[in-house]
């Protein structure tokens, strides 16, 4: 008898589903739940994914979460940061990043909060690879705290490029732009609307559409909302015993 799925495990399965059609590309999940999701996808629906140990080693078989590929698993290649940049530019990569702020067109901010760019109210980590990722290959987002603070009408600094800017600059920023899905602790959202604005694709079991709308700082298209699927027993077994036996997923959300 399998214990019922936790919210974290439902989110893991939703993250895993974003990799199904990725094919043989470098998977770059940032953060604990996206990492478990990508590893679950590799073991189930997306076996061709190319995954690292979190640092510079490509792993045919992954060590448990948090371990270096030098200590366990099977190494199949070398992917130091200099090669990552080459892969980004080639397009053979897909990322799932975080977002401190995200707006209705999927513009993402991880740089700074506040409109005074030279003296921000809160300095964050910096744009990292978000500008390059979003104009080169498929990008999805994971937001563990779906709230009006994260889902804002307009982000303070565009790190990752959204659909409005990509469409307005179709031959430059838009050429390889492909921002698709946002998975949160409440719901799965996408941009499958005529103007590329955000749509509520599914709510997690037990979450109402109204709760998602209340936690979102802009209107959402709610014309076709499903319920997020539950992970299968086999997926739960893989998450619990193979990928994340130490239970890191439960520290990110409950």
């Amino acid at each position, binding site marked *: 008898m399998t214990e019922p799925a936790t919210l974290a495990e439902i989110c893991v399965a939703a993250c895993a589903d974003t990799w199904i059609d990725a094919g043989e590309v470098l998977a770059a999940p940032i953060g604990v739940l996206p990492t478990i999701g990508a590893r679950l996808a590799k073991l189930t629906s997306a076996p061709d994914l190319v995954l690292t140990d979190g640092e510079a080693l490509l792993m045919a078989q992954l060590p448990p979460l948090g371990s270096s590929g030098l200590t366990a698993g099977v190494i199949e290649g070398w992917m130091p940061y200099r090669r990552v940049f080459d892969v980004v530019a080639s397009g053979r990569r897909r990322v799932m990043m975080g977002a401190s702020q995200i707006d209705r067109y999927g513009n993402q901010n991880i740089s700074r909060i506040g409109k005074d760019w030279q003296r*921000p109210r809160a300095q964050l980590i910096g744009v990292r690879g978000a500008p390059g990722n979003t104009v080169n290959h498929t990008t999805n987002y994971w937001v563990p705290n779906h709230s009006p603070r994260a889902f804002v009408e307009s982000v303070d600094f565009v790190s990752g490029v959204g659909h409005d800017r990509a469409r307005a600059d179709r031959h430059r920023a838009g050429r390889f732009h492909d921002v698709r899905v946002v998975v949160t602790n409440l719901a799965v959202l996408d941009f499958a609307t005529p103007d590329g604005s955000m749509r509520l694709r599914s709510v997690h079991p037990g979450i109402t559409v109204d709760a998602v709308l209340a936690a979102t700082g802009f209107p959402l298209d709610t014309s076709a909302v499903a319920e997020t699927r539950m992970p299968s027993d086999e997926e739960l077994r893989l998450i619990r015993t193979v990928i994340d036996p130490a239970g890191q997923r439960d520290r990110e959300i409950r």
Partner: protein
Amino acid sequence: MTPEQVAARIEDGMTIGIGGWGSRRKPMSIVRALLRTDVKDLTVVSYGGPDVGLLCRAGKLRKLVYGFVSLDSISLDPNFRQARESGAVEVAEYDEGMLLAGLQAAAQRLPFMPIRAGLGSDVLTSNPHLRLVQSPYGDDEVVAVPPLHLDVAIVHLNAADEFGNGQYLGPDPYFDDRYCMAADQAYVSCERIVDTADLLKDAPVQSLLISRMYVTGVVESPYGAHFTSCPPEYGRDESFQRHYVDSAQDPARWRDFAATFLAGDEAAYRAAVEAFANGAAS
């Protein structure tokens, strides 16, 4: 050379490139020596970690050219945050790939390096000096990253010979060779200086990352990357990094931290770190 001798080559207003990545294999002993000088108004180019935080806290930085500042296992560096939120440090924030493109343009004496990263983002809006360039072969238009020319590069490796042939033994070289090639003067600190003939005793030739052609001076500095990681010799000192972060949140505790760890030379630093580790263990 000693870390102090390298620090003495660094002058007010210079542009300094610092190797490593986040809280990984940073040339910390040279950074610490720099904290003890009266140098100011530096421009630093870095995939930033505690190197940036420490230099900000000591008031050494005028400007930072960066893609992120992070301590890896701890997402943000509080010293960097304070410097930015008080308006003390100016920034040119680039995408990570753009930073490398700028180093390569400088290393190859090119006027710019083309890259798609930056298009459509506020990296372009916030850096009005950045220009786009039209392809001479078609209608594609991309970002032209200008050279990030460095007056001085500092990096930390696992080993080197006395001539500056530098070797990394961990999984990732980061961009330490590119920093050295983009600089007028490059200084390599290392865990140990070995005879040239011994460099490949237990390592493949591909581990020889940096050629003496690009190196001005070599410093033997065991634990010179502490508290950042330097595999395979040592991992990140997580409990010390936590102590650094906790101390940075409070002025009185920072005075203690600076007096204990940053006032003396490397021998004093290592003794203080050892005492901290024994205290933390007991």
